[in-house]
């Protein structure tokens, strides 16, 4: 069974051409699309060794608290974000890439316990380092999460954050301030300090400036209450809730359903910062509303792309395992069990691939996306979801989303009995200038071309009577709109001259038509409403000659 989406709006009379052109920005490197890597940037300056006073227990330093929090983050990611890459950078006045991007969370964990203490904090150079590392590994299109762990002591003198911010506007292109990051990013600042402590200096302000400089992408976390393991845990818990919670949803198609994880987490989207500043979030019920050919949807612009992974949920609602295959096949038995239950995702993915179609999915009120199969490598392909921009008509060539309907509701199959035609793309209500033969005389060549067209046809009268008058009227209309009456007079003179130059063999009708046209143009050039009405065309003179072309007019 196939279901097509079909539009019901203004289709009759749609003619045979696409009617609108746009440039599309197509991005390559499709293999690593569902990656959202993390860089952990850890402050190892001396101030991180400041002891934390906890009564009646062994002495902790701030760096121990930080390591504790990061351990928690790594453990969470090891369970929920197995496919994700994470790197660890440490910094003081210098920076060092301790662990390059890896999926091996044991290595990251080990590195945490092997950190030395160094000198002062120099945040700017560390951020420059992050820029380099990310750009080298992922380029500029992959979104990245930066987790900066610091105690809120921002260094002193040259290289301190205060100094960096003060000189931020006096940079040349070569030593540009590293924020905003030259790739889509979120900057999470984890402070091993509580709010009161940060507010006693201007530290908080400086850190807030950092988030602002990153176009507001990010957040600052501080410890609530006294500095202790428990409160650090709750701070990292908040980070996990915000940035590392898997997005679970139910994919629905009529009675068929599947539990899925959407990865990476779809970001809330602000449609218009002024009139609708509340970010929109996608539904957790993803309802398929129909299917459409890839050729009809072409490559539409999308906000983001996500992997849709089938998941098996046990009764408590915890994830048992994802059903996707991985190169290093060390998955647990839960995965194998999940693999044996027929899953709608598998059916859908296979069908979309075979049929060359995409599924249109409802993400929220007036918000849609598409599900499709995307080849990852020669052998592997994935079920993907792309989000369109929210709104009633995200893809102008499909018309209004709400107007798409089932093919069977059409009196006549819009795709033809042999599936050899398509109702898309729709024609825009007003033709674009390049599709409607507009008259522009800004350059002299534009005007000359139009005059010559008339002249060429004038010499082939009466055969070209229709085209002659068509071009003549086009020129007349434009000249009237532009108030360029001298041109009408000039062209009239020209036609009269042509009349005198007619060869002996010319059809007698030619002279009549030329004289008539010249006369009409002259009348129009006076600008009197009687002869200069815009909507009134000059019609061929009706003559007694048997010119069949004029008979037809």
């Amino acid at each position: 069974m196939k279901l097509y989406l079909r539009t019901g709006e203004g289709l009759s009379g749609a003619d045979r051409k696409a009617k609108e052109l746009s440039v599309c920005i197509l991005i390559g490197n499709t293999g690593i699309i569902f990656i959202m890597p993390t860089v952990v940037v850890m402050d190892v300056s001396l101030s991180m060794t400041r002891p934390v006073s906890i009564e009646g227990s062994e002495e902790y330093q701030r760096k121990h608290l930080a390591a504790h929090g990061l351990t928690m983050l790594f453990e969470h990611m090891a369970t929920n974000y197995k496919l994700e890459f994470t790197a660890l950078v440490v910094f003081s006045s210098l920076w060092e890439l301790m662990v390059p991007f890896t999926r091996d969370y044991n290595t990251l964990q080990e590195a945490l316990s092997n950190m030395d203490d160094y000198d002062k904090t120099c945040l700017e150079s560390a951020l420059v380092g992050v820029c380099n590392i990310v750009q080298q590994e992922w380029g500029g299109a992959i979104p990245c999460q930066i987790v900066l762990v610091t105690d809120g002591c921002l260094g002193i003198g040259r290289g301190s954050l205060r100094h960096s911010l003060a000189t931020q506007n006096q940079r040349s292109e070569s030593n540009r301030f590293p924020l905003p990051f030259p790739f889509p990013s979120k900057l999470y600042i984890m402070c091993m300090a509580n709010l009161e402590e940060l507010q006693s200096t201007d530290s908080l302000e400086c850190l807030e400036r950092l988030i602002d400089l990153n176009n507001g992408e990010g957040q600052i976390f501080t410890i609530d209450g006294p500095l202790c393991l428990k409160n650090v845990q709750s701070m990292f818990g908040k980070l996990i809730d915000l940035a590392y919670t898997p997005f679970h949803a139910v994919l629905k198609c009529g009675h068929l359903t599947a539990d899925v994880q959407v990865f990476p987490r779809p970001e809330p989207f602000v449609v218009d910062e002024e009139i609708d500043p509340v970010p929109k979030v996608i539904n957790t019920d993803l309802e398929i509303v129909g299917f459409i050919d890839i050729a009809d949807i072409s490559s539409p612009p999308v906000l983001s792309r996500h992997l849709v992974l089938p998941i098996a949920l046990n009764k408590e609602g915890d994830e048992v395992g994802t059903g996707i295959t991985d190169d290093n096949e060390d998955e647990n038995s839960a995965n194998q069990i999940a693999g044996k239950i027929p899953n709608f995702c598998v059916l859908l993915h296979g069908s979309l691939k075979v049929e060359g179609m995409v599924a249109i999915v409802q993400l929220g009120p007036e918000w849609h996306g598409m599900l499709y199969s995307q080849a990852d490598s020669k052998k592997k392909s994935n079920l993907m979801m792309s989000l369109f921009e929210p709104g009633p008509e995200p893809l102008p060539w499909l018309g209004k989303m709400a107007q798409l309907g089932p093919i069977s509701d059409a009196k006549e199959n819009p795709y033809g009995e042999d599936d050899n035609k398509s109702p898309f793309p729709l024609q825009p209500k007003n033709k674009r200038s390049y599709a409607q033969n507009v008259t522009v005389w800004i350059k002299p060549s534009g005007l000359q071309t139009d005059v010559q067209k008339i002249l060429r046809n004038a010499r082939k009268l009466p055969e070209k009577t229709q085209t002659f008058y068509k071009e003549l009227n086009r020129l007349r209309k434009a000249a009237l709109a532009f108030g360029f009456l001298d041109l009408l007079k000039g062209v009239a003179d020209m036609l009269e001259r042509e009349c005198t130059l007619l060869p002996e063999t010319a059809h007698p009708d030619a002279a009549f038509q030329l004289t008539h046209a010249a006369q009409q143009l002259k009348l129009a050039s006076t600008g009197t409403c009687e002869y200069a009405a815009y909507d009134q065309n000059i019609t061929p003179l009706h003559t007694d000659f048997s010119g069949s072309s004029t008979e037809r007019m």
Partner: protein
Amino acid sequence: MKIFSESHKTVFVVDHCPYMAESCRQHVEFDMLVKNRTQGIIPLAPISKSLWTCSVESSMEYCRIMYDIFPFKKLVNFIVSDSGAHVLNSWTQEDQNLQELMAALAAVGPPNPRADPECCSILHGLVAAVETLCKITEYQHEARTLLMENAERVGNRGRIICITNAKSDSHVRMLEDCVQETIHEHNKLAANSDHFSLSLMQIQKCELVLIHTYPVGEDSLVSDRPKKELSPVLTSEVHSVRAGRHLATKLNILVQQHFDLASTTITNIPMKEEQHANTSANYDVELLHHKDAHVDFLKSGDSHLGGGSREGPFKETITLKWCTPRTNNIVFSSISELHYCTGAYRISPVDVNSRPSSCLTNFLLNDPRYKIDGSLEVPLERAKDQLEKHTRYWPMIISQTTIFNMQAVVPLASVIVKESLTEEDVLNCQKTIYNLVDMERKNDPLPISTVGTRGKGPKRDEQYRIMWNELETLVRAHINNSEKHQRVLECLMACRSKPPEEEERKKRGRKREDKEDKSEKAVKDYEQEKSWQDSERLKGILERGKEELAEAEIIKDSPDSPEPPNKKPLVEMDETPQVEKSKGPVSLLSLWSNRINTANSRKHQEFAGRLNSVNNRAELYQHLKEENGMETTENGKASRQ
């Protein structure tokens, strides 16, 4: 992004006073003679455009580019000013196209050089421009209605582009002061007047762009001045521009600034020459589009793009080399592939009627598509509805279905999911069922999967039982769609029925039946919604069902049987009490007579008593019960209404 930024509303105010009829003093040769006819003929004298013509065609070009790239939500109001203000169009979307504006301009015509200059002024137009900026657009209105109590979030900003011929710098100051004062007055008016609050808004921000234009060769009496804030509401800038193509260039730069446009040049496009059809030369075409289209290029650090910045910041263009597409489809994408596209941006050719431009756009536009006739107003909800119907019974694994592997079932399966059936559909369904009966009689093999079964799999008659069960599940999922769907089920039940003895015999031999049970479960949820349970008729069915259950118990005892499925009692044989079950397989005669009866029954109205009968027994005096307020649900038919 802000919908209601300054570029939501643009007001053009073009001077129509007598001096605008003056020539721009830039000549255009229009009589270009073809070579071999030039002897002895003197070409006609070149003509020149008036200041008015230059102003109008430049502003039309501004609008052309804007409409191409922003067909919606960016609006223009065109005003010409002489002894009064003539407002040529409104903010409504219908008025937003070149044709409308051209027609309105033609109606105005060129300025009258003999009019009294004392009566004419650009000031009329500027005042009207402020008035029109206060007027709410349909987009603003819609947004305000939608936002209700947050209606104040909808901004009202705009831009006035004034093309005039000013006397001096102080004349320009005077124009600015006039605009500022008018805004002040109108804002007060809009604020204080409840009556107008639905159609008028205060102006929050207004950008005044004053363009002083003068004939080529004359000295400018007005100096350029960059954007300056005259008040919190008003900014103003002054451009002093020679008429002719200089004015057009200025407006082209302005439209790019005002709408954040950038330029891309497609280079090396091969095109055939008219004169030399077998050779082709390469051409470049420059396109304008929103500058976001370049963001990713610039991010990738490729900053040495474009051809020289000698002509100012807005002459920078990114060059792309033309690749002839393999399919004759859209240039940047091939037909059956999805590309990751982060943005699509509408374009407008810089030089729209030049040959290379029109060659390129025509090539791209000539993507053959077909004409569609007939359309219905169909909302997306109908599509969802249909998906619901289509998925009521949908086995996800091929080996778990028999009927969807059978070509013979297609005519029925493809129509039964429909919302309503035609008589022809019903007939086709019935034909399908008779055909299946025929197959069973001939003992044709069925495509039942033997995967996972030991031995050869189920016997032939068992296969048919599985097939009939599955078919029944499918049809049953749709019986509530219409009365005709029920007729299909009735036909199915009539044809598939077996004598009980035979059924029993078969059941003893069967090993596996989980397949059909899965399918039955699939529709169970759906069926549970129906309130059939209280039907009197079902009671009898349940009785017989118990016997079956007892039988299932027996199978359970057999050592290598799988767990008995918690099967719902089979309803099928009791749905059609009129068919004799003791006669063995349905004979051709009974099939035929059945069919004739069905056909005949359609030709006359059935006796009401028989229609409402249960087991051919109709209850009399039902109305008495109703009058006594008793339930009538004992009657099966009645309960369904």
